[in-house]
């Protein structure tokens, strides 16, 4: 039960983190009215994943290993693009908020409104199919007792609870710290998703270098341990990482961090203040 719980925790953690930051951000910027868009994205991803997972589990339909990896890898890289967009969208807000009284922010969502649903959708759908396959397989294995399903459900629940706690914390800290912390967190999470996507594409045979490992610390950080699970579930740290994954990670993190944390120019008077 513990082992299955850890799988559930890992699968649920990253999506829950991204969604909780998105929700905290909307609450902080006085846009609770946009929350349904986030929930639409989440709901659509959950429904789609469960349906596709059930079709693959209970009917003759099947995805080959390569197709699954290709799907996972592509969705991951698209998700990175959207999360990166979200990070800089938030940054622009931080700039327009500068000097304004905290709590009196009325953010104009602009084009961001539609994309909110997409970010939420992709964050959940990315690993949604794999999680759904895991849940359905656990449900199907009920012959060997209900332990696998209970464990899986428990792990997913804990990931949501952890994300809720993060949200509670995020709505309390001051706004300047909020943008710094959530921005940094999202960048590291997105870099991990990119690395994960690259690995999927390497496994699918689309990208080379699957066996050229930059490092392998699986002896020190076993992937099945609780800390290995947390590292994997949050920042997608894999104990055995290929060179291509490492390079992609660095090539993403360095410029994005530099751009995100460059000094905020004083908001140019009216034109760009409301995005």
């Amino acid at each position: 039960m513990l082992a299955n719980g850890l799988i559930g925790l890992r699968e649920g953690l990253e999506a829950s983190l991204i969604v909780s930051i998105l929700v905290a951000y909307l609450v902080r910027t006085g846009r609770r009215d946009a929350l349904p868009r986030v929930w639409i994205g989440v709901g659509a991803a959950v429904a789609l994943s469960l349906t596709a997972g059930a079709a693959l589990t209970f009917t003759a339909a099947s995805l080959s290993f390569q197709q699954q990896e290709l799907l996972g890898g592509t969705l991951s890289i698209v998700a990175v693009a959207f999360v990166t967009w979200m990070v800089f969208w938030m940054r622009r807000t931080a700039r327009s908020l500068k000097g304004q009284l905290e709590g009196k922010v009325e953010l104009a969502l602009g084009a961001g409104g539609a994309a909110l649903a997409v970010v939420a959708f992709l964050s959940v759908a990315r690993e949604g199919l794999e999680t759904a396959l895991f849940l359905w397989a656990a449900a199907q294995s009920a012959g060997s007792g209900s332990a696998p399903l209970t464990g899986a459900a428990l792990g997913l629940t804990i990931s949501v609870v952890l994300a809720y706690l993060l949200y509670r914390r995020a709505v309390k800290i001051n706004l300047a710290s909020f943008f710094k912390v959530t921005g940094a967190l999202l960048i590291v999470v997105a870099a991990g998703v990119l690395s994960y996507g690259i690995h999927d594409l390497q496994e699918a045979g689309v990208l080379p270098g699957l066996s050229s490992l930059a490092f392998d610390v699986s002896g020190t950080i076993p992937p099945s341990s609780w800390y290995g699970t947390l590292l994997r579930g949050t920042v997608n740290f894999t104990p055995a990482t290929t060179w291509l994954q490492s390079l992609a990670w660095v090539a993403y993190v360095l410029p994005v961090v530099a751009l995100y944390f460059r000094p905020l120019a004083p908001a140019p008077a009216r034109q760009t203040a409301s995005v």
Partner: protein
Amino acid sequence: MRRTAPVVLLALALAGCGGQAASTSSASGEPVRVSAGDTSCDVSRTSLPAGSTLFRIENTGSQVTEVYLYGEGDKIVAEKENIGPGISYDLTAQISAGSYDVVCKPGMTGDGIRTPITVAAGRPAP
């Protein structure tokens, strides 16, 4: 409605993938059973005909495991990660004539436990 458009597109993309692949799962005969334990990796048949083959993997151990089908030079032909204890998965793979290894990696680390299998050519096309 424009906010739901990308969602619908992705749904179609997913459905498209599933539909396309559906035809490949007409694996012949009995599935090959793989019992992946903490210290064992039992494969029910080690001589197989070429073609679409269904591997029914069951984690009989206490650790999370992963099962690979390696071809020549340890090229991954198929793989299933994160198989929790007590959980079964069906893995379909297209295999042609040659030598393969079924590899279970309890705890998802290390070189794993290998069982060599041989695939013979000559199964008539369906």
